[in-house]
């Protein structure tokens, strides 16, 4: 395995030194929010705790959580720990209803997050001579701009392509010899399909080496499919606006999880119901505390993302802890006939079945009925209805096995389900409850 580091001093810190650094930063940030952010002061007082009570990073467990709702108290500037003149950028999260979450960055925050990205890119093997086509949405969304700054810090040539206009995306790749792409997994599948339909060959017509895919969770099977179709290595990247966008968690070539930069974040995994830490290896909600955020520090922020901690030392040499691929948002989870289901479980089954094209949709309606619409691969169709019926039955059985709930499976033509230049809407809930 090739070993490259952007900031070896921090990336290779011993566990003890990392803990010491965390403690120092944690004390400082708790003090800052206590002194400067009225809402935190109030919360700490209500919990009967002071920053000075913290003696080790582990003591963070006695401090109250920050939830999405807290971000709307004293909205929009109330959580700032710096005066407005120190704040240089606003990002918002893609709120589905109501006001968007507002996240603020100081100059130092922008640079610090860019460094996390630069570390992550170097970790994947990227170099200054690489060409990154950045096909996330530029604008209020953190995805594109934060990646952009990080890639520039590393010295890559960045093509600020933005999403959509697939024809142009492919032209850019060909003209400028793009080696790395950053986009959502569903869009990557779409782009890969168009590249194939155009008869273009990876390695001959396009020269991609790495794909950084994030902003949606996706399965190992989907990763494999994209790697085959584009001839790339796919690196899973994880982030959320509240934690500064992408660059929070990133895969190294050893895979087996995503490194979380522990000099920047204090990591906990809790039982979403009780708020207690889960046992090692147990699935729970990821809770993060920003350790060096300037403008808008967040203490014990409930990400709603479900994962497990991977504690084993990583062959890449980095001491920073890993989390498993995100299982889903606790928000994405839906319950059918009493069973908890994540869209990713369904995707994982579908992508492993020959004859299934890339898109699917889950429709919940009536009294707890689940219908899964699946696109049929055009090449799979041989003209016989028997083959389709067999495919439908196979999908139904495999889903039943994986989910413990028998869905109704409908086969639809390839290209008829809503595609995904951005975040694909996978679940439609029309249930009468």
């Amino acid at each position, binding site marked *: 395995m090739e070993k490259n580091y952007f900031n070896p001093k921090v990336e290779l810190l011993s566990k003890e030194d990392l803990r010491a650094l965390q403690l120092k930063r944690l004390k400082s940030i708790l003090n800052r929010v206590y002194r400067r952010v009225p809402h935190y002061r109030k919360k700490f007082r209500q919990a009967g705790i002071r920053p000075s009570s913290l003696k080790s990073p582990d003591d963070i467990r006695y401090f109250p959580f920050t939830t999405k709702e807290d971000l709307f108290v004293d909205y929009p500037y109330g959580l700032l720990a710096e005066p407005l003149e120190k704040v240089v950028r606003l990002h918002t999260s893609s709120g589905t209803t109501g006001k968007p979450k507002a996240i603020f960055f100081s100059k130092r925050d922008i640079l610090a997050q860019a460094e996390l990205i630069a570390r992550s890119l170097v970790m994947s093997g990227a170099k200054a001579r690489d060409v990154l086509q950045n096909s996330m949405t530029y604008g209020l969304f953190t995805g594109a701009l934060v990646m952009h700054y990080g890639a520039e810090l590393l010295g890559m040539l960045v093509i600020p392509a933005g999403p959509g206009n697939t024809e142009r995306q492919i032209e850019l790749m060909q003209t400028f010899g793009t080696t790395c792409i950053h986009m959502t997994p569903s869009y990557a599948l779409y782009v890969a399909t168009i590249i194939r339909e155009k008869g273009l060959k990876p390695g001959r017509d396009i020269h991609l080496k790495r794909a950084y895919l994030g902003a949606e969770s996706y399965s190992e099977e989907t990763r494999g499919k994209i790697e085959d179709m584009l001839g790339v290595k796919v690196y899973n990247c994880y982030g959320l606006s509240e934690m500064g966008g992408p660059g929070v968690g990133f895969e190294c070539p050893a895979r087996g999880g995503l490194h979380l930069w522990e000099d920047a974040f204090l990591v906990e995994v809790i039982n979403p119901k009780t708020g207690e830490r889960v046992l090692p290896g147990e699935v729970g909600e990821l809770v993060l505390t920003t350790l060096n955020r300037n403008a808008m520090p967040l203490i014990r922020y409930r990400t709603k993302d479900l994962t497990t901690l991977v504690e084993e030392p990583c062959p890449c040499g980095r001491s920073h802890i890993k989390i498993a691929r995100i299982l889903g948002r606790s928000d994405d989870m839906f319950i059918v006939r009493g069973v908890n289901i994540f869209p990713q479980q369904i995707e994982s089954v579908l992508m492993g079945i020959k004859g299934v094209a890339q898109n699917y949709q889950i429709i919940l309606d009536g009294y707890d009925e689940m219908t899964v619409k699946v696109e049929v691969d055009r090449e799979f169709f041989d003209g*016989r209805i028997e083959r389709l019926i067999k495919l439908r039955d196979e999908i139904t059985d495999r889903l039943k096995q994986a989910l413990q709930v028998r869905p109704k499976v409908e086969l639809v033509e390839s*290209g008829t389900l809503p595609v995904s230049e951005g975040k694909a809407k996978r679940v439609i809930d029309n249930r009468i409850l």
Partner: protein
Amino acid sequence: MKLVEILSIFAENRPGKLEKITGLLAEEGINILGFSIASVKDFGVIKFLVDDVERAYQRFKERGFTVAKLPAFGIELVDKPGGLYEVVKKISKKGINIESALVYVAETRKRAFFVFEVEDPQNTWDNLKDEGFNFLDSSQLKA
């Protein structure tokens, strides 16, 4: 082997689907000689015997349809009671299973063909070629 090819299109059961498909054939001036529809609740397969299967196949493919070509045999029927029975009797005697079928009426009240698909065309041909049937040939389909 005297074979014809059938155009087969995957279709979701949705209002207007058949209209769209037949509309495309009309637009291209492709003549439908026979057709069949097989469906399970929410999807189905529509099959056509047409005068220019290659062009039809290409056009549907270009438009993004899920489409395939299937080999089939066409056997001429005698226009009298028991005409179809006589043909099917001989086919089943040879242990050949008819997977799907349609009828092509070449001239009303004069010439009609029973067009059917089987699992193993070669074996079917070997079994039926000396049975005295008049087999339909793809060249006969062109206007």
